[in-house]
């Protein structure tokens, strides 16, 4: 038995070597063609619970790449987006991070989406010296993830606090219900809201978690209905928000104000929510009502390519790619040079506003206020 086991170890080793031999053969052809393409990694979830957002990011990033290629590429070189699926799972993210970091033809990486994946990938990217620009990780911990970890989305703290101030100071709500998804994202936002509400002197009367992809919200909505809550703040994404909005009327909550951050900005919110989505208030950086020329060009290109309006994460994906492309245009495709350039980047206009990075690689920009009127997002001045 023991011998068999050893034989198996031996076979496994041989197999692995065979594999590496043939794939490294494939790798060398890549480096041969290195001279005429610039390759950017895109590590996002394409299967699993966040697949929809991953797809948006990929689409958005592809638009940025296409725009550059149509304009003749960078120094005559075409740009290629190398997409890898991290399944929204941190151990898979580590695998993908290794794959991209090891491939020396990859100049920088757009990704990851989930904060847990960004954090799992961060040590690998930082060790290898590859810039990763997250289009969706807003958790506080990403701030300290390393010099090579950047993000084009603001932290939960920025938007969460802004939203809380809007609700309490401007709209006068004193009793708030917080419904959040039971993930790193939802919990992070719920914690920010809890602190912000305490500072503002308002009460959180209901704070309930739900699972991503849940369809039934009767339990939590019943709790909200029997509480003093004047508004529901959602720490989650558009699908669940739409369902909550739709189901609230069954519990006599049809006039209950629903508020959220930019994670709920998506056409899916309006499509799924129907009439119930009207009147939802949200903060965000990207909107199809945006007056920015960059944003409008992006929207037009996106609609033409995919036949639908871009969601928030598509815009973030676009911006992440845009930032990388801007760096490559200025300092070339060298990994370290890109990092150096980005660490001092200021004032690059993207679809989600003006991008500047602070010393931790966090983006600094101001949110705007939006609502939904007659099935369309409208910016509130």
């Amino acid at each position, binding site marked *: *038995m*023991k*011998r*068999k*086991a*050893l*034989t*198996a*170890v*031996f*076979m*496994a*080793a*041989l*197999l*692995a*070597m065979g*594999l*590496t031999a043939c*794939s*490294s053969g494939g*790798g060398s052809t890549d480096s041969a063609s290195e001279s005429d393409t610039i390759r950017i990694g895109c590590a996002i979830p*394409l*299967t699993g619970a966040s697949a929809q957002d991953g797809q948006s990011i990929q689409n958005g990033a592809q638009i940025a790449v296409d725009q550059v290629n149509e304009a003749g590429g960078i120094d005559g070189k075409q740009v290629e987006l190398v*997409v*890898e*699926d991290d399944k*929204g*799972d*941190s*151990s898979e993210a*580590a*695998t993908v991070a*290794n*794959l991209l*970091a*090891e*491939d020396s033809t990859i100049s920088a990486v757009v990704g990851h989406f*989930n*904060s*847990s994946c960004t*954090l*799992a990938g*961060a*040590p690998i990217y930082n*060790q*290898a010296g590859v810039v990763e620009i997250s289009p969706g990780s807003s*958790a506080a*911990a990403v701030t300290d*993830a390393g010099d090579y970890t950047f993000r084009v989305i603001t932290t939960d703290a920025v938007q969460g606090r802004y939203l809380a101030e809007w609700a309490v100071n401007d709209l006068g709500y004193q009793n708030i219900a917080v419904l959040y998804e*039971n*993930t*790193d*994202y*939802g*919990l*992070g936002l719920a914690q920010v809201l809890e602190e912000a509400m305490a500072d503002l002197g308002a009460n959180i009367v209901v704070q309930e*978690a739900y699972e991503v992809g849940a369809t039934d919200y009767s339990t939590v909505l019943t709790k909200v209905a029997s509480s003093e809550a004047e508004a529901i703040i959602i720490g989650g994404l558009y699908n669940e928000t739409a369902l909550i909005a739709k189901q609230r009327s069954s519990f006599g909550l049809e006039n209950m104000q629903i508020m959220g951050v930019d994670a709920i900005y998506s056409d899916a919110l309006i499509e799924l929510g129907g009439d119930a989505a009207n009147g939802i208030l949200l903060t965000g950086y990207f909107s199809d009502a945006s007056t920015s020329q960059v944003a409008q060009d992006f929207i037009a290109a996106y609609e033409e390519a995919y036949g639908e309006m871009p969601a928030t994460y598509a815009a973030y994906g676009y911006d992440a790619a845009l930032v990388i492309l801007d760096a490559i245009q200025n300092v070339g495709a060298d990994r370290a040079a890109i990092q150096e350039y980005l660490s001092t980047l200021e004032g690059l206009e993207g679809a989600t506003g003006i991008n500047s990075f602070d010393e931790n690689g966090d983006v600094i920009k101001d949110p705007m206020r939006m609502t939904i009127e007659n099935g369309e997002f409208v910016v509130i001045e």
Partner: protein
Amino acid sequence: MKILRNPKQKKVLYGIGLILLAAFPFLITNSYYLHVCISIGVYILLATSLNLVTGFAGQLSLGHAAFYGIGAYVGALLMLNFDVNFFLAMIASAVVSGLFGLLLGLPTLRLRGDYLAIVTLGFGEIVRLVFVNWAEVTRGPLGLPGIPSPSIFGFQISGRTAFYYLIIVLVLLTLFVMNRIVNSGVGMAMQTVKIDEIAAESIGIYPIKYKLIAFVVAAAFAGIAGCYYASYIAYISPTTFVYNTSVTILAMVVLGGLGSIPGSIIGAVILTLVPELLRFMSDYRMLIFGALMVFMMIFRPEGFWGASKRVKNIYKIKAGGGKNGSDSGDNQRHN
């Protein structure tokens, strides 16, 4: 495989195999390949340990990822909060996971087959939910970042090469222990229990004892794998220790061949490599993976290293469980 019959040549071959394994990081400097090898190593730990429960003791478990997770969290929390040395943390992980293994083993006093499977599944889900919701300790879904690398006598193990050697050592250690257990009286008693509990009892083998041993040992090794994983990735979150992971580990054991240690190794290697090899067709890869699982079961249900590969088997049992129920399972066999 004929040359393998000759013990001398065999020794030479194993020697070469081990040297190749040891030399691997020098031959291949690509860290992605090293990472894949390390992942294979972790899955070998998980699959061989689950094999002890499911393949040898015949208890279907769908919650192995829970022990993996408990090990990871115990190890990570000790290293992060109390600066415990990695190797001590690893022992603690093994002990705590083992205790939970005992806890999960207890229902086997009364349950078997599909009922046990659903209890282990429920256990796995509950453990995951505790990771998610016990935020004061586990930071919930935010996960635990910045888990330190191990150090021996002040020498820091970091970088993929060092982790590669560490997992090789752990794999060899696990295989050694598993082999000793399986080929001992305990292992034989386990296999007897798997075939027929009542018959086992009638010849003086106390089934519960051996089932519990299997659960505890398997959980302890899964715990070790978890602690290693936590330190290697340096970040853990509940998303890694989910039902799907348990299923993947079980699939490795079954595809490799139940009750066969080399089978589990092959299962771990193949099920880690196949999704990686299918990466280029990202849209279709899981579709193909699912179909492959079905076809594998239809055309080779005994697994890659199933009964036909095994020369000697004391009980002449068919791999893949043979008959495991006593009354209800039987009447379908003649169909």
